[in-house]
């Protein structure tokens, strides 16, 4: 939480694409700015 406050972004979830998309959509539902990034 502090990381996102200081850096403006933070990794909040990792995993396969489907799970990550579900998590991203959940954040989008709250108006949060979430994107996917492949490692």
């Amino acid at each position, binding site marked *: 939480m502090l990381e996102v406050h200081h850096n403006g972004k933070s990794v909040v979830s990792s995993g396969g694409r489907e799970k990550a*998309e579900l998590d991203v*959509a959940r954040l*989008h*539902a*709250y*108006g949060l*700015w979430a*994107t996917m990034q492949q490692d």
Partner: protein
Amino acid sequence: VSFQSRVERTPAGDIRLHLADDERALLREVADELGSLLEEAPDDPSLRRLFPAAHDDEELEREYRELTRGQLDAGRERSIETLRETADRELLTPEEADAWLRALNDARLVLGTRLDITENFDWEAFDANDPQAPELALYAYLSWIQEQLVEAM
């Protein structure tokens, strides 16, 4: 205007709102406008912050949108509807208060996009004669109510 807290949590866990009639009317209006915008102009540029891209890749992004947009729309419609229906209520259940938070946040994001408000926005330079002053004031008001709700919950 009094700046004491307008939102408090009751011992039973509900949320009590001390809002004037004109504030409630304004909130209902915000819910109406946001609801019609989502329904009638889903591709309006001011809505883009509500539906951020999940992928840089165009094909993946298209798939993500097809998969999630319907659900995101439905969730937003529900919380906006709750705000509209409970705008006159003195007591909110925690679920209703959560819907208020979501709807108010959505309204702020849309207004903020329209007004191009960013983190470094200079509120000190607020000018009441600015043609955007009413919308800026609304943005500030919604932020304030949102903050009070978060603090009360």
